[in-house]
Each structure stands twice: as structure tokens, then as C-alpha cells.
């Protein structure tokens, strides 16, 4: 029996740690997968409505694409600053990562402000959950659902980053804590890549 168990461990080559990662990181990845599947469901549902629709609005006439590109720029830049923060902690320079974490949080806050401005603009133009002046009625529902749910994730990310920054300033945060905040933040950026392409461009 012990021999069989030993063989199993050898085959996986990971012993009690098959992914060779701490439980926090593995749990964060599991969360990312499940949350990613939620977004995949939303996007699949959007794809369904899009094929079904006879008059899907032309995005370039509804949105200012340079403005959306600027939002994308802010999010990508914040991802780079977050990666720099994680890199600093990996080099045991926890204090040096603080300015990068703050920059990332600022990027997230700017993105949220830009999104609020975009929402206000579209609502003033007549976009609602069940109707809009440009075409298929479900357009408004998918716009508010996808960008709203993503925006909620950004808001959560900014809160996590602000907490991480305070903990770093007080010397309470660990390198792993910063890395987890980073993983979540990059996931938010990753989801935006799909929304930007599938909702705004295609």
C-alpha cells in the first residue's frame, strides 16, 4: 500500500505540493478560473444575442473608440506598474514596491472615473438596460452588464491595492500578499482585453 502511494507521488512528481505553489497562490488561481468562467458565460451569452440580432449598433458610431483606447492604455499601464511592484517584492525590496502599488491603484481609479464618464454619456444619449436609440434592445443590457461587472472588479482591485499599500507602508504586508494582489489585478486587465475586442471592436 505504502509502495503504491509512493509510486503515485513519483508520477505526479510534486509530493504534497503538486503545483509547486503555496495554497494562497493555488486558491487565487482557482478563483481566477471560476471568475473567468463567469465572464466567459456573459461573453457567450452576448455572442448569442449578437448572432440573433438583426440591427446590432455600429460600435464606432456609439462609442468614441479613441476614448476606449485611452481607457485600455490606462489599464495596461497599471498592469505594468503592478508587475514592477511584484518584481520589487521578489527582490526582497518590499518598501520599493509601494510607489508602484500606489501608481497601480491610481491607474485603477482613473479607469473607473473614465468608465463613469462613458456611462453618463451613454445614459444621457438614451441608453438603458432594456432600450437604446441605436439598434437591438439587448445592446444596452450587455453594455451595462459587461462593463458594469468588470468595473465592479476594478473597484474591488483598487480597494485591495489601497489596503496592500497601507499594509506595505506599515510594514505588515508580505511579498506573497503583493503577488496575490498583482494576480487579481492582471486578471482584471486580462478580462478587459476580451471585452475591448469582443464588445467594442468586433
Amino acid at each position: 500500500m505504502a509502495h503504491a502511494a509512493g509510486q503515485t507521488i513519483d508520477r505526479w512528481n510534486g509530493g504534497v505540493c503538486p503545483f509547486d505553489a503555496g495554497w494562497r497562490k493555488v486558491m487565487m488561481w482557482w478563483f481566477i478560473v471560476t471568475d473567468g468562467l463567469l465572464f466567459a458565460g456573459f461573453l457567450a451569452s452576448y455572442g448569442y444575442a449578437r448572432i440573433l440580432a438583426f440591427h446590432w449598433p455600429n460600435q464606432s458610431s456609439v462609442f468614441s473608440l479613441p476614448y476606449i483606447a485611452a481607457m485600455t492604455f490606462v489599464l495596461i499601464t497599471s498592469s505594468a506598474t503592478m508587475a514592477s511592484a511584484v518584481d520589487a517584492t521578489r527582490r526582497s525590496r518590499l518598501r520599493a514596491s509601494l510607489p508602484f502599488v500606489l501608481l497601480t491603484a491610481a491607474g485603477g481609479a482613473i479607469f473607473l472615473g473614465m468608465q463613469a464618464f462613458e456611462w453618463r454619456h451613454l445614459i444621457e444619449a438614451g441608453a438603458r438596460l432594456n432600450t437604446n436609440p441605436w439598434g437591438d434592445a439587448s445592446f444596452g443590457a450587455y453594455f451595462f452588464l459587461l462593463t458594469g461587472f468588470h468595473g465592479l472588479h476594478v473597484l474591488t482591485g483598487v480597494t485591495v491595492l489601497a489596503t496592500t499599500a497601507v499594509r506595505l507602508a506599515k510594514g505588515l504586508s508580505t511579498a506573497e500578499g503583493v503577488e496575490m494582489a498583482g494576480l487579481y489585478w492582471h486578471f482584471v486587465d486580462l478580462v478587459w482585453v476580451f471585452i475591448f475586442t469582443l464588445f467594442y471592436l468586433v
Partner: protein
Amino acid sequence: MRIYWITWAVLLAFTVVMLWADGAAIPRAAFLVFMIAAMLTKASIIAGNFMHLRSERAGLVATVVIGLLVTGLVLYVLIAPDAARIHTMVGAQ
């Protein structure tokens, strides 16, 4: 740290090219293929370089990537033909 800013520049370059393609006169099918390829490339660059998935164990990478991609694809592939069928049916009426 340099790699992250190179990644940032590459992601920005992809975004600019995608915006250019959006305004260019490209056949719809080619446009869709290009956009989806660019989107998946950007996603893998973020996951690989920013999220350090490249340096993780193969088991973790496979679980995350296959789990997300296959389930996402199954979700869409199962319902898309139904949408197309209803679209054609309603259009014929």
C-alpha cells in the same frame, strides 16, 4: 523589470494595430480572425509575463488554460448554432 515594460509596449502596439484594423477596409471574415488571434495573443502575453504563468508548473498552466479555454469554447459552440438557426428562421418569416 525591463521585461514588464517591453510587454507593456507590445500590448500597446497590439491595441494600436487592432484599432487601425477596426477602421480599415478588411473583409469581415479576415477581420474577425485577426481580431480573435490578436485578442488571444494579448491574453497569453498578460498571463505568461505579467501573471508569471510561464514560470509555473505545467500542471497548473494546463489546469488554468485548458479549463478556461475549453469551457469557454464549449459554452459558445453549444449555443451559437442555435442563435444562427433562430436568426435564419425569424428572418425567413
